[in-house]
């Protein structure tokens, strides 16, 4: 345990922002998969439906959380008035447009005759995929715009978040499919998605290693890497349980459970996906809480905000009788 609270670490963005980053990723990821799967036709119907049902609501909730985290939520609309001036202002429109497209896509997909609206759905899906990817990337770009936190400045963060968004999107979709299980076809889709997920997990693994390695090479972000490598939520929560375990389970579903019944596959898929989701959230949380200010250099000295022991808060004590 670290006996001290490190003053270099940022403490203004915490759990809520991590949740938003997560939901942005998972929503965008699930939508992207759904939209791609929609081109594959009937065979992936359930995953398409579930994915569409995830995309819009996830972003809606995510945006609400984002607004709730504002110091001054009533003023959030101001962010939309100056598009193009900052990443948040851009993000405002990216998310808004994505929500519009994904909402329309969902409504049309669910409530119209698919044969009649195939054309418009294709257009929506293409636009939706673009904005979904932008939405996820934006969660990384938001961090990347933070000049005060060198750890986040890396260009790999948006890529990492997109990949992780696709992974978690897969997982949440799979959980949705477990809930809305439709029989044998679902199992087939599982097997396809398990393979997809495994591949993307490998890509994510490469991305995260590349990210950490690059950050470690930069003196200003090295401290963050050292901290994140000591974080249980990162190593155990994300790396082992949130990435390794789901990867293993997905491979098992794909290659060793060929003879298993649907119940077993569903259970394994559910467990793997759940851990993967939690891992996705913990990844973002760990990256946030390990964000450290650069060390200031002057006259050969390195200046840092001081680390304080954790237990200095005063108790109320006794008042002299009044």
């Amino acid at each position: 345990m670290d006996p001290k609270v490190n003053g270099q670490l940022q403490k203004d963005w915490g759990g809520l922002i991590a949740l938003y980053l997560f939901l942005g990723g998972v929503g965008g990821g699930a939508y992207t998969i759904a939209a791609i799967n929609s081109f594959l036709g009937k065979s992936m119907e359930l995953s398409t439906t579930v994915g569409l049902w995830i995309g819009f609501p996830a972003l809606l909730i995510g945006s609400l959380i984002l607004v709730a985290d504002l110091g001054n939520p009533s003023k959030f609309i101001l962010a939309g008035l100056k598009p193009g001036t900052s990443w948040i202002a851009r993000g405002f429109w990216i998310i808004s447009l994505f929500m519009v497209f994904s909402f329309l896509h969902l409504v049309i997909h669910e409530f119209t005759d698919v044969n009649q609206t195939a054309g418009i759905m294709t257009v929506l899906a293409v636009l939706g995929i673009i904005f979904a990817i932008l939405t996820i990337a934006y969660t990384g770009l938001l961090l990347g715009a933070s000049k005060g936190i060198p750890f986040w400045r890396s260009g790999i963060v948006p890529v990492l978040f997109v990949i992780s968004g696709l992974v978690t999107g897969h997982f949440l979709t799979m959980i949705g499919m477990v809930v809305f299980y439709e029989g044998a076809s679902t199992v087939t889709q599982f097997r396809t998605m398990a393979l997809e997920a495994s591949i993307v997990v490998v890509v994510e693994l490469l991305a995260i290693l590349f990210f950490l390695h690059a950050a470690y090479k930069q003196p200003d972000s090295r401290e963050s890497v050292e901290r994140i490598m000591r974080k249980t939520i990162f190593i155990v929560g994300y790396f082992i349980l949130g990435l390794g375990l789901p990867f293993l389970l997905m491979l098992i579903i794909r290659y060793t459970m060929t003879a298993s019944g649907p119940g077993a596959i569903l259970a394994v898929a559910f467990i793997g996906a759940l851990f993967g989701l939690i891992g996705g959230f913990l990844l973002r949380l760990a990256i946030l809480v390990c964000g450290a200010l650069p060390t200031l250099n002057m006259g050969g000295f390195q200046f840092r905000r001081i680390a304080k022991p954790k237990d200095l808060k005063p108790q109320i004590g006794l008042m002299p009788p009044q």
Partner: protein
Amino acid sequence: MVDATTTKEDVWIPTCCGQCYCMCGVKVRRQDGIVTQIEGNPDAPTGRGSICVKGLASPHLLYDPYRVNYPLKRTNPEKGLGVDPKWERISWDEALDTITEKLKECQERDPRGVFFQATTTQASEIRFGVIGFMKAFGTPNYWVSGGGLHCGNGAHFMNGIMHVAWSIIPDFAHCNYALNFGCSKGHGAGHVAVMNATQVADARFRGFKNVVFDPFMSAQASKGHEWVPIRVGTDGALALGLVNSLINEHGIYDAEYLMYKTNAPYLIRPSDGRYMRDKETNLPQVWDLVDNKPKIHNDPSVTRVEYEDEAHEVALTGTYNVDGVDCQPSFELLKEHVKKYTPEYVEKITWVPAATISRIAKEFGEAAEIGSTVTIQTENGPKKIPRRPVATHFFRGAQGHTNSGWTCLSIDMVNHIVGAADTYGSALGLGGTVQDGYKKTGKPYQIPYPCPDGLLKAKAWVYDHIPYPLREPKPPTRLDLHDMFPTSIYNAFTICSPKWFDILERFKIPYRPDVMINFGSNSVMTMGNAEAVTENFLKKFRFIFSFQLYCTEFEEAVADIVLPDACYLERFTPAVSFPSTFSHPQGEDDWGWTIRQPVVKPLFERRDFNEVMLDISKRCGILGKYYKGLNDVVPIRYGGDLEEKNKLVEDGSVEHSWEDICDRLVRDRFGDEHNLEYFKKRGLFTWPKRKEDVYWKWFNPSRVPVYFEYFIDSGEKMSKLWDEYQGNDFFKFDWSRFKALADWYPCPTHTEEDPEYDMHTFYWRAVAHCNSLTQQNPYLDECAQEDPHVYAVQMHQDTAAAKGINDGDYVWLENPQGHKVKGWVSLCEGIEPKHLAIAAVAGHWGKYMPIAKGKGVFFNDLVEMDLEHTDPLTFNQDICCRVKIYKAD
């Protein structure tokens, strides 16, 4: 509710800060009746518009919700550390009735049973309520708890002898090279902190070099030109090493200065170490090298008052036959005496490399530019005086040891060897005790003068007794046997002894501790081991009442009644920067007499200490005597007698209000036009300082000792008296310290043989804190937390690694007597690896001071209060110790 944008009242009131003893002039902002901001007062020479972090943080002192606002009564008869006093709010009438009753009972038993304990933080308030009452009531028993014992018995006393000043400090404006022995002067703490800081910063800017000897990298060491890590408590040995190196290795000394401004040429009789005295006049003799015969020290032919005077050279070395006795000048004896302090010998003691000692002595000697002069403008036209741009200076760190007295004298000796004392660029007495007063009234007048033996005597001082000549040891009447001891102001080893009452019995003290009056001190924490202080000393009083701002650990443990005192923003004090021993910046800036005035009326039922003491005196029927007491203290403390019309009426027929008393004092000093009303508007009165008062050495006919002949006498008298009482049954005194030539003596820290206790520990002064009061201020607490070391035990990384201790770990520090304190470590490189450094009077546990509670380490708990840990010469407490360090859970 105050509206920040539509405030109606917005005024700045000039007064004087009271967060420590520095007495900086301030302006306090009051908006709609609320104190909101504090700034330095540019008119005040103390500060000149800047104040420190503590003063700035004052709004929280005034408004802290934990302040005591009403009189409190202890309802739990049990006393002791950690006991719940079960406070009950009472009325002022009830409180004062009880107090009067207890005082009257004591008066009947023996008024000397009253013991007044005060704080140094409110050093100016003490001069009225405490001293006046003591004189009126008839008790000699008094102390300022940790103040003095930790910081001043050695330093102030010795600086009083050598400079008629409270401390010494380089003339930063002109000094080029200084040696700093464990003191933070000029770096945020210590007397006149702010102005010194300004001056040192300016000096650094122009290339001033400061070599700092300190076991850890203090603020001053970090700003110094060179940090020389030194083993704690060995500064005296280092200083003597420098003296030896200067005289005997490099042959550097200022003969002119030694001949005419010190007793270095006084001839010493080899048989008993006393002065050779002229048969007719009984005055000490020197050897005139021109006439080749002995002369009395103040014979005009061998005296140079001013530098431009002419006089015969006198002998500093050699042997001369006077009336058949072969005698030597004291300098010859000193020169021989210090020969044993070779760089190699000193290295073994101090851990400072021999080559470094030798080099620094050379650098210092060369930087002194002996022989150089400068012409200054005096009242009597331009005068040439020596220019000596070097100085040694020291304070708490160097002098808080069992070798305190001689360490102080040894460090200052380095100055006197090169003539760098109270002249241009040299070590100056800090606090400005030399001045001829405001022209119109001639007050405060405090020009020192020589005693018949030619040695320097102060004209004004903080106490009734000036530092020199020493008092005659007398049969004791005080509870700490103080009367017997000529070289101290008070001590702790007697009153904190578990055998205190046996001692009183043996020394025929006919009374016992009875009523303690406490003014603002938290002596449970500020002196030494809390248990010893509480059990052996404080619990021996029948009744204790306390003027206090908070219910501190002291009140919790032992107070019967707590009176809610006003803080400095709620009270009048007519003289704050005076007595001037420590509250004036050195250098050529003006004199300033500052007052305190209430910025707001005392809140709730708080009342000003001095007003309440008047009230209590009236109730005790001693008001007239109280006035007389105040009339009596004015001449020595404020430099000059009171005019008849301004004296308080001593027969008690007139009742003087506190404001009236304030008014009379300032009018008396500065004329009727500068009355209290004038002071209320400006906050202070300033008048120009004469250059010859800044650099007074070569304008004053006095000399200072480098050979302390009179200590021998004093020690003999004292030991004789001691033996009469068979004092050795209680305390085995080391009388050998009462001698004429300086030496270094080891502390228990240096003689500890148990290898388990391998770490040396000591405390240091953090800039955000002063004494224990500031610990409860949340602004200052937060500031202290911003520093990596203030609330931690500073420890060297390698030492910690060897002991398996990590950064932030909780540890115990335990001394050989088994007393231990807990804290967390902060690892660093800036500390001598065998040392542990702890800051401030921290580690509070009081339930009524939650901000202070649990912050930092209670170092003083490791301070032992026995004679073994006391300097036998000055009774300064030993504030370093050996400890073992081990991990706590």
